[in-house]
């Protein structure tokens, strides 16, 4: 894992300041089919390679972020504000 994460609000910050939630998946509509909800809650692509996750900058700006990184090299490719992406964290 990269030791520094480029927070869009705070700049490069140490990884220890963040809390990791997990896969950044689009949340289904409340009225969506139970199968879709099951998929969202329990199933994961879990790829070797590029992956997007929700990270919370707990000890910084306290914003929810979407961190894109590689699960083999741990390199962080991008870090965006979750709201800016249109996801509800």
């Amino acid at each position, binding site marked *: *894992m990269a030791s520094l994460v480029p927070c869009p609000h705070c700049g490069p910050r140490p990884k220890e300041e963040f809390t*990791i939630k997990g896969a950044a998946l689009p949340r289904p509509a409340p009225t969506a089919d139970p199968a879709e909800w099951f998929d969202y809650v329990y199933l994961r692509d879990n790829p070797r390679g590029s992956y997007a996750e929700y990270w919370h900058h707990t000890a910084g700006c306290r914003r929810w972020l979407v961190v894109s990184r590689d699960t083999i090299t741990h390199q962080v490719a991008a870090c965006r504000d979750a709201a800016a992406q249109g996801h509800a964290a």
Partner: protein
Amino acid sequence: MKHARSLLLKDQRPLSRKATAMRYSALSLLWNGLRGNRDWRPAWRQPQPKPHYDVIIVGGGGHGLAAAYYLAKEFGIANVAVLEKSYIGSGNVGRNTTIIRSNYLLPGNNPFYELSMKLWEGLERDFNFNAMISQRGVLNLYHSDAQRDAYMRRGNAMRLHGVDAELLDRDDVRRMVPFLDFDNARFPIKGGLLQRRGGTVRHDAVAWGYARGADRHGVDIIQGCEVTGIRRENGRVAGVETSRGFIGCGKLALAAAGNSSEVARMADLKLPLESHVLQAFVSEGLKPFIDGVVTFGAGHFYVSQSDKGGLVFGGDIDGYNSYAQRGNLATVEHVAEAGKAMIPALSRVRVLRAWGGIMDMSMDGSPIIDRTPIDNLYLNAGWCYGGFKATPASGFCFAHLLARGVPHETAAAFRLDRFRRGHLIDEKGQGAQPNLH
């Protein structure tokens, strides 16, 4: 072993036995010692893949090798191949911290892990290999009244299942491990839950013992053979594409641990798993100091001392998806801090080695041993960071499922569809959040 025998099946034996490795005994040791140790033969063959097997097991780790061993030895299915992309013992079976225990709370878990413990207790005799199984005790510390209540509940659940458990108070713990920081300002030690039958095993020997045992019963262990595709015909698995060509099979069994999601994807299956990195550490050799396994109930640290004198310790997973087999320094620092909070004397111990393994973290923290929606494809996955202690029972129950088509009674709760049905086995009560299990 007396307990385990009744659980094993004695009626089905393979008819032929390819005796490629000699049996080990005190006499063979003496004989070969006198002759300059020139006549030892390799413990297993290096066979070329055959065009077709009754069962192919993907993954030559502890669970895959154990499944092959029990399939051949207990269930009479010896036309089996174990495909390992690297070499035997290169994955999690050689990367864990060697602890065995059966101190589980929930009914779906407890009988399974106790079966595993009973199999451990008879394993060396069963596969004729010294795995240095040492029931030196596993002690979980508690630091508050609430935690004591939780451990009392767990201990009672264990005893109701016929598993040994003792609740210790502060003085009992002090007599066992006097060097702990009992008066830590934040996490004072109030007592502990002890399972005396828990302990440690030499993990490499488990891989070697099962590999040798499976090979003796006719199983082909094919190393350096990576599965690159799963060929399906008419909705069934026909075989696997590998780095050494196509190999056909009657049944395909996945035991790929941290790579389970990647292998299952080859059959268009999406699993309730995330792969996370867990680190482990070994210190320089010290004089005998810690007799058993001790875990810090405040979290994130556990330790035992190997027979060579090194402290073997670890903490929690790093918390992010990873296939890298190496972890982050922030976790190293955290584990070291927790260790020092529990045992102040550790502050000047030097760490020799640290490494990471990839855990197949499931969505409820419990494993899966089940069929899949594809008729002849079987799955063994989701072991989180508790796979090593489960090795014998996992192999046995997976072999049972492959041979009989129905789950073994102790593994009946480990179904793949339990997430859809809402029958989760959530030992920690964390919900579908794999990095917290």
